[in-house]
């Protein structure tokens, strides 16, 4: 310990003697200094920041700026400042709360369904069964289909007149009407869209949770078994804490992905019927490309960003509290 302490002290005085006790030249003399740390930190952060600045920050800042402008395709080169004009227009129309509600419903529905499904399947796959690898690969198949194909495939499956969904359900006598409306029924359209999304995205969650489960420390499991804990107690007190990181990460990924989702909803329902599946991303698109009002589209984006940031901040604060 004394020798080590000595070594540390030697380094911090900046001695430049070449060749430490390991026989390697000290390349970095001031490796413990703050400056070195700072330089290193910024240097390694730089590429990420540059890429993001280039691709996203700049258009995003511009987007925030034009959300306060009268910015339509007519006046692309000289947006006129109209302070909160766009925001007033959005909030006055009452539609915004509607869109927000749809978005929350969509995100909540998708993430919850995926989570439950993935948890159940991961737990089942984690048991002592043969062919786990094969099952895992088979489940992954739906994830490899591009989203645009998923939207067309499910539109087709849920098609009232020549879709398979109705045929199967009707044959099993689960529904009365052989041409039941799914995507054009205001009550079921959201369900249809969520179904397609879950079908595509659940495999990722399954794989991640399964990986997390398989990484749980077997010593802890054995200890719990020796203590005579029931399955449920083991699950809650041993397994869950171990996979908390994985769970948290996959849930956050799903939430943010679901918020951004555009392709599936647009190609399946175009935001209808009766605007019941118009989420914020669809609304932003329609403001920009149907109403040609880019300012309003950006304003929707800004509001959305504020909402999501607030949620993330709350989440971070809560998880910090949990850690403490």
């Amino acid at each position: 310990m004394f020798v080590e302490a000595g070594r540390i002290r030697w380094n911090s005085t900046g001695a430049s003697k070449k060749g430490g006790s390991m026989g390697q030249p000290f390349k970095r003399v001031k490796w413990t200094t703050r400056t070195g740390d700072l330089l290193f930190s910024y240097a390694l952060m730089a590429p990420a920041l540059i890429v993001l600045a280039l691709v996203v920050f700049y258009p995003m800042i511009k987007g925030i700026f034009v959300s306060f402008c009268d910015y339509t395709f007519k006046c692309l080169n000289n947006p006129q400042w109209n302070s909160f004009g766009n925001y007033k227009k959005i909030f006055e129309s009452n539609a915004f709360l509607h869109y927000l509600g749809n978005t929350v419903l969509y995100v909540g529905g998708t993430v919850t369904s995926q989570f439950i499904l993935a948890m159940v399947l991961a737990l089942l796959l984690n048991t002592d069964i043969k062919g786990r690898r094969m099952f895992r690969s088979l489940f992954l198949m739906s994830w490899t289909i591009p989203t645009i194909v998923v939207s067309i495939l499910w539109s087709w499956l849920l098609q009232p007149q020549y879709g398979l969904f109705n045929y199967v359900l009707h044959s099993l006598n689960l529904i009365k009407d052989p041409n039941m409306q799914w995507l054009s029924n205001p009550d079921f359209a959201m369900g249809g869209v969520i179904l397609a999304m879950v079908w595509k995205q659940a495999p990722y969650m399954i794989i991640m949770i399964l990986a997390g489960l398989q990484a749980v420390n077997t010593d802890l499991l054995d200890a719990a078994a020796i203590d005579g804990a029931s399955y449920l107690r083991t699950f809650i007190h041993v397994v869950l804490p171990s996979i908390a990181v994985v769970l948290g990460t996959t849930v956050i990924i799903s939430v943010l992905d679901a918020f951004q989702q555009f392709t599936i909803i647009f190609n399946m329902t175009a935001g209808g019927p009766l605007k019941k599946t118009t989420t914020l991303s669809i609304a932003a698109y329609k403001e920009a490309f149907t109403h040609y009002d880019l300012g309003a589209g950006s304003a929707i984006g800004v509001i959305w960003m504020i909402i999501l940031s607030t949620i993330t901040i709350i989440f971070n604060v809560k998880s910090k509290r949990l850690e403490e």
Partner: protein
Amino acid sequence: MKRVVWLFVVIVVSSSLLFSAAQSEGAKKEKPVTIEFANWLISEDNTRPAMQAMIDAFEAKYPWISVEITGYAYNSVQDQLLIRSAGGTPPDVAQIAPLWVASLADMGALKPVNEILSPAVMEDFFESSTGGTYIDGKQMSAPWTINPVLVFYNKELLKKAGFNTAPKTWEEMHMMAEKIAALGTDEGGNRIYGRSVASKLLPGAGYFFFVDMWQNGGEFTDANGRVVFNQPGTVKAFSEAQRLFRSGVIAPGLEIKDNRNLFALGRMGFHLDISSMIKTFSIMSPKGEAFKDDYDVMMVPGGAGAPGVTFSTDHHLVAFKDSKHPNEAALLIDFLTGAEGMDVYTSNGVDVLPGRASALEAPYYKKLDSMNSKFADALPMARALPVQSAAFNAACEEVAYAIQRVCINWEDPAKVVAEIDATIKGLYNQK
């Protein structure tokens, strides 16, 4: 020594650059030009060969011009043209639906075609088709193909329902549609529908409903461009549609592509569509070419005692202000819309009608079959949609929303029409 070598390299490089620049200055006349033509015909199976053939013929006629075709999916064309124009790198020529012209014109992205085409060519275009995109005294797009919308009817289904002749009035058509829907199911056990009305939340569903609106005496805008959507005729059209949706004569929540599939499957009595669908129906139908014997087309039957009114959904061509080759763009537009281009187009199996009088010289138009003759006859009668205003696109989507409210949510037609009228007036900045 190194410096000398570098200096030498610099001199050699710059002089060769200057030399080659001088060279290209001299060879101006036959300098090869590449223009970009954005369209969606190249993407679809039944029009791809025609598109390729047209470009090959054009390049053969003008050997120094090579055309780079950029394909887009139909649903993405408008967005992409808007984005590219905003970014300053539009294509040189683009195929466009008139519905999208106003937004691009408002942006100042288009070069009016009357500035690059000769007066003789401009004279040649049909009045009825150029009017729609004549904005602020300039002709913003050149009509390429005019597609009047007529009624396709399935003769077999009519016969089964007990009718041997086509309906003469709009009301009669609906009566026949109800009887056809009453047939129930076909041999495969699949539901049969009387007629099609698209009701997905997209502009296309909106403007197709104009046919219903017009046959009932309704109007969208008056002669001065004021929105007059709220009219008894329009309310009647919606009420009638609501009744037919409710009784199952019309299948709810479909977009026009679904309706086409149903017609091709022989499960639809009456369907409004354009002439290019004739070939598509043969491709989509299980009966193949033989399906053509099962159906026929007719002019939209008039309602309320008036003659029938229909519209045309056209394909136009536009040139862009930021294009570096306006002359070559003009040549392409002239070729495609003229007799030569239309000849190649129709020789490759696509049934389309031209936007120019001289194009009728193409051999195809001399020997039109009976179905296509009917489309040609409807040409002068088809109204152009009021696309001059950029707000029309959003307005059509509001009409689609109205259809959904009335026919899916079963709201009161009069109330919905009044509310949507107010919304549309808002879009047009009218009170």
